[in-house]
């Protein structure tokens, strides 16, 4: 058994993916802000949102966005915790909360996107 959970791998694949998803999100999140928040009507009215939601492109876009965004955020959060040595029970609990809440909110978001 491993003394500290999260220490079994080098973490290299998630390290690379954190950078790749990050570079993607730089463009997408800043773009998202300009589209949704600079013009309140396009991001804050049901009619405008629904029009986008019926486009396959925006559906795919939102599904990718939510997956990449959540993964990047939660992998980063776990990365912060991994920097500290914790008792196995503590690190397992934190890891469990991250994974389970991540899955729950991913399902919640995907459900919203696929309702249209």
């Amino acid at each position, binding site marked *: 058994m491993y*003394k*500290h959970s*999260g*220490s079994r791998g080098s973490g290299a694949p998630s390290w690379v993916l954190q*950078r790749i998803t*990050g*570079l993607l*999100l*730089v463009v997408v*999140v*800043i773009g998202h*802000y*300009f589209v949704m*928040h*600079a*013009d*309140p009507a396009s991001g*804050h*009215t*049901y*009619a405008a*949102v*629904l029009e986008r*939601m019926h486009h396959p492109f925006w559906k795919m876009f939102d599904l990718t966005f*939510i997956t990449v*965004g*959540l993964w990047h*955020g*939660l992998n*980063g*959060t776990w990365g*912060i915790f*991994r920097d*500290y*040595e914790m*008792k196995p029970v503590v690190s397992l609990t934190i890891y469990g909360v991250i994974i389970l*809440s991540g899955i729950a*909110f991913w399902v*919640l*978001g995907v*459900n*919203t996107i696929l*309702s*249209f």
Partner: protein
Amino acid sequence: MAMAYQAKPPEGWVNTNLKYYKHGGSWAWILHRITGLGLTAYIYVHIYALTTLTQGEKAFDEEMRLFTTPVFKILEWLLFSLVLFHAFNGVRIVLVDWADGARYHKKILTVVYGLGIVLFIGMGLLMFMSPLKNMIASIK
């Protein structure tokens, strides 16, 4: 990680961390973590808030009336500062890791803050100029 489990230092982890000598890069490291945690918390709130889309037009537009009040718009604008810092400092991290950025990371940090401030003000103008114009027009 391969080291033996270490006892908590007497002054606590947070104070131990705060004690370290800090230069621009260490502050960027700290800010990157704080903004990252903040944005991750926000994505949860964001996903939850948008579930009202499934409850129809009335529920969604009512919620958005709250989110387009001045207080929420200012919060939304302030949130953009977290996005900008985390995004540009993230690019800086990638450059340090993959493009020999350790040689010029201090210069990139200036660009991170500079570009961030410019885009933050730009977003502020986009978000608040037309409401401000309307407000002034309604007073006249």
